[in-house]
């Protein structure tokens, strides 16, 4: 078995004074796709944002390691340059900043050196084509006036360009119609290789029809209560989160 690429080790996260993630442990190896599924309020977005280093979330226990190195003390940009990526659930708009300028800066930052214009255009056009996005798209301001589907595609565009080692996808499937979901999923699959790993965080099972997970985990109250293979997602689709929530409650009461 190859060494771990990304390790979440007994992670505890609080927002303001509220403890949201309570000792979450998960290991991703190169080439793996993991899905974390959980109901509303289970800590999905807190997990995603804290992994990337959002200042509003305080990690107050445990560790996160990329390639064996702890990243919890690092600023978001340092984590990104090491190869961690977060696809945002709600990408923020930045008026006046063109996508093309932003993407070139981001790619240069990821590489640690200025990317030549020619090469940038080439890679950009290739990824745009793959995502069935018009070239004019990158002339627009970052996420400004984008539809829900366009925002998600723009996230996948960045995923394709930045080629991170680990991609955390925060509810990337939400708000997408079936065609957009398919295109976005294809984008994720094209990015996926034996060298990187993907953590899909989702409420619904439907994206898992397009992006096949190796492992599925159920998140309740900030901890993983059950792990399994892809069939676990089907079970969730059939029975819902209720049985897991009831069990989690029981465990809390008896512990």
């Amino acid at each position, binding site marked *: 078995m190859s060494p771990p690429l990304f390790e979440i080790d007994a992670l505890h996260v609080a927002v303001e004074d509220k403890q949201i993630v309570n000792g979450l442990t998960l290991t991703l190896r190169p080439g793996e796709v993991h899905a974390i599924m959980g109901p509303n309020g289970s800590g999905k977005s807190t997990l995603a944002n804290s992994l*990337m*280093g*959002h*200042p*509003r979330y305080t990690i107050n226990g445990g560790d996160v390691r990329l390639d064996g190195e702890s990243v919890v003390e690092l*600023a*978001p*940009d340092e*984590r*990104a*340059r090491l190869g961690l*990526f*977060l696809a*945002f659930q709600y*990408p*923020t708009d*930045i*008026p*006046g*900043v063109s996508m093309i*300028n*932003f993407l070139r*800066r*981001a790619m240069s*930052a*990821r590489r640690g050196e200025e990317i030549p214009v020619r090469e940038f255009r080439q890679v950009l056009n290739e990824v745009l084509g793959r995502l069935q996005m018009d070239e004019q798209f990158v002339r627009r*301001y*970052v996420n400004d006036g984008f539809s829900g589907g366009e925002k998600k595609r723009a996230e996948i565009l*960045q995923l394709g360009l*930045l080629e991170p080692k680990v991609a955390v996808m925060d509810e990337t499937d939400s708000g997408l119609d079936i065609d957009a979901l398919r295109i976005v999923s294809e984008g994720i699959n094209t990015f996926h290789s034996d060298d990187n790993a993907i953590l899909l965080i989702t409420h619904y099972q439907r994206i898992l029809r397009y992006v096949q997970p190796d492992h599925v985990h159920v998140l309740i109250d900030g901890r993983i209560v059950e792990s399994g293979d892809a069939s676990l997602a089907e079970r969730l689709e059939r029975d819902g989160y209720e049985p897991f929530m009831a069990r989690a409650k029981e465990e809390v009461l008896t512990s």
Partner: protein
Amino acid sequence: MTTPASEAPVTPRSEYEFGFHDDVEALVKLPKGLSREVVNTISDIKDEPEWMRKLRLKALDHFNARPMPEWGGELGDIDFNDIHYYVRATDRDESDWEDVPDYIKDTYDKLGIPEAEKQGLLAGVGAQYDSEVVYHNIREDLEEKGVLFLGTDQALREHPDLVKEYFTTVIPPNDNKFAALNTAVWSGGSFIYVPPGVTVDIPLQAYFRINSEDMGQFERTLIIADEGAEVHYVEGCTAPIYSSDSLHSAVVEIVCKPGSNVRYTTIQNWSNNVYNLVTKRATAYQDAVMTWVDGNLGSKLTMKYPAVYLMEPGAHGEVLSIASAGQGQHQDAGAKIVHAAPNTTSVITSKSLSMDGGRSTYRGLLKVYDGADGCRSNVRCDALMLDEHSRSDTYPVMEIDEKKVDIGHEATVSKVGDEQLFYLMARGLSEAEATKMIVNGFVEPIIKSLPLEYAVEMNRLIELQMEGAIG
């Protein structure tokens, strides 16, 4: 008779690149203080027509009679008796840089002006050093078409009737305390006349430089665009850093005759010890278009609200304003549009930044007179603060006395958002780079309306200011 230039050995604020000064003994330097005698002496030196002397003295009375404004910025520290009202470094206004004294030419070389002129980026150049214009030149083909681009003093000597016809018709001597002061002691500035139907295709530029300590610069600019004429005028301003403050109080009057199109662009980058108190106003007649592009980056305090009076139907006025206030600065800037005729239109777009404890204020007036029906106006002012200890205020006043109008207004005040910063940093951009990108995006709507070389310059100046603020 020239004195060799030497640069100031130290620049207190390293971010301000124009902080050097020339050690020069002025040819004429009136003693500090303001009096009838000083005003008379200025008029004598210039050998002016009698009407101008009378106008100056009348304006001095207005100035003395009026109280200091109690709104806007903090003006209490200005000591009108501690200012030289007239400083002349050379006795000539040249039209060839080779004839300009070397130490003055060196200054403009450092600012890149002669080079830009040589490269054909400009149709004409004017340069004012302290109180007097030291250089003026215009492309020959424009001169042949009758375009006048002169120092205002020279215009008064060579075209007295034309100057007299328009001088103080847009901004009367008693308009406000500082316009009165300017009218009393004015010196230098640009005079532009564009004959009917003539288009000046690339910008005319003037560069204003204060060199002396405790100096007041009071240039007076008058632009007349005759019917169907088009002209773009650009001014830049810098000054050295001294321990005591300087005063810059200009008046700019513009007449846009029917069908004309005038654009006036200012990139003000005074050092942080300059009070910049300027009155700028244009009148626009039938179907004329007047645009002010006003960039305020420097100065200790700026109070400036470029105005357009829309006098006849079809006239259009536009103000694009950008202000950036860093440590110890207050930019009190904005716009004033007066709809005095039906079917006139206007747009005000203002973007202000404050950082490092600086303060930006948007102050605007939109006035629509009763009977000016069918007017349309859109006002948008946005303020962005880079940190907690900076300040931003907006005072958008609207006086609408007519019902049949279409007025849109939108104002926002925001802080560089945590979510925006996090988003960009999550893509690998450092905090400083991310902040710059957000700020550049914020000012983009104004920057893109500038000619390319000024857009680059403006972006560069904002970045320079931010380097001081965010490290």
